[in-house]
């Protein structure tokens, strides 16, 4: 429905001030469905938004932050396992 609007917001965040209350629910739902809510939250950060929109985007940002920490932890663990493996090749 408003995938175009979501794309516009991601490329030109300033357009957020022109989004009407009737359009926001679709934008947010499509962003969730496309796994772009975190990206949208980062792109729109610092802009004045309706409180409900801000709340949804804050949650998306917290979610993205947690995902990032978890991904980095995975990488760290993989790194440690590989380092152990190269130091002791007989270890598997």
């Amino acid at each position, binding site marked *: 429905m408003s995938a175009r609007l979501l794309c516009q917001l991601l490329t030109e965040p300033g357009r957020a001030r022109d989004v009407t209350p009737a359009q926001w629910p679709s934008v947010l739902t499509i962003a969730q469905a496309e796994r772009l809510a975190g990206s949208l939250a980062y792109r729109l950060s610092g802009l004045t938004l309706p409180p409900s929109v801000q709340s949804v985007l804050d*949650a998306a940002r*917290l*979610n993205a932050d947690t995902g990032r920490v978890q991904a980095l932890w995975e990488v760290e663990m993989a790194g440690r396992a590989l380092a152990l493996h190269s130091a002791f090749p007989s270890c598997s």
Partner: protein
Amino acid sequence: MRFSTSMRVGPVGFRIGSDWRAPIAGLKRLYRDYPKPADDIPHFTVRLEATHWWRRFVRPSVRIAGDHTLPEALPLPLAQGVLAAEMAMNLQMALGQRHFLLVHAASVERDGKVMILTGESGSGKSTLAALLGEHGWRLLGDEFALIDPQTGEAHPFPRPISLKNASIDVMAALAPPERFGERINGTPKGDIRHLIPNAAALAGMDKSAPPALILFPRFGNAADVREVLPSEVFIRLTQASTNYVSLAERGYTALTQLVTQTPARAIDFPDTATGLKLVQDLWAELA
């Protein structure tokens, strides 16, 4: 979607769309006294969809969709459409809520302090909370206690109470018929009927309060009270929380604060009258 409605429950706005009229009509009845989402912009969107276009008509079957979904969720028959919507709304909270630590628990308030009742399905927490809500306590909710990580306070989430089996008749004796939804028979949890929280609960849906007592009720045994150590409370609440892990450090800090500052008891009760008395005695002693 063809049919839709929206409502605000405590701090959370929902929008529900459906391929059928009936579930939306049922929801509009249950949520008739609830406000609309702030700015008319919901936090979560839920959709009740036909599994195939022709299943709108032939053996209609409701698939739950929305902002946050579980891939393995099974569709429900259309007769249980309201239940499907309730489950879908719970799922949005369980998977998508990041502002509060969510504990699968009922909660009630008295004298500006909150009692949290947690336990597995069938433990009697919903029934006790519904009873207390009709006995001078303010019902905060029967499904999720929302703990604010910044203040430690419990926020109301007063959804219609999902009464099951025998508790339907217990509450029918206490609340007028217009506060009940349609009876839904043959669900995976037996028969279900929703009870709309009373006017005090709905009027207070924006008023948070600090927790003062955590109870682990268990229905079906001789009356008993047991102290629960903070270590056990902590472990049991991590299991009862749907977003403890995803809140990471904020979740740990919020839960540690809750557990170390709030006394906890496990109670057994053979019937609702005994349960009510135990709860009220403990409240007078500890809160």
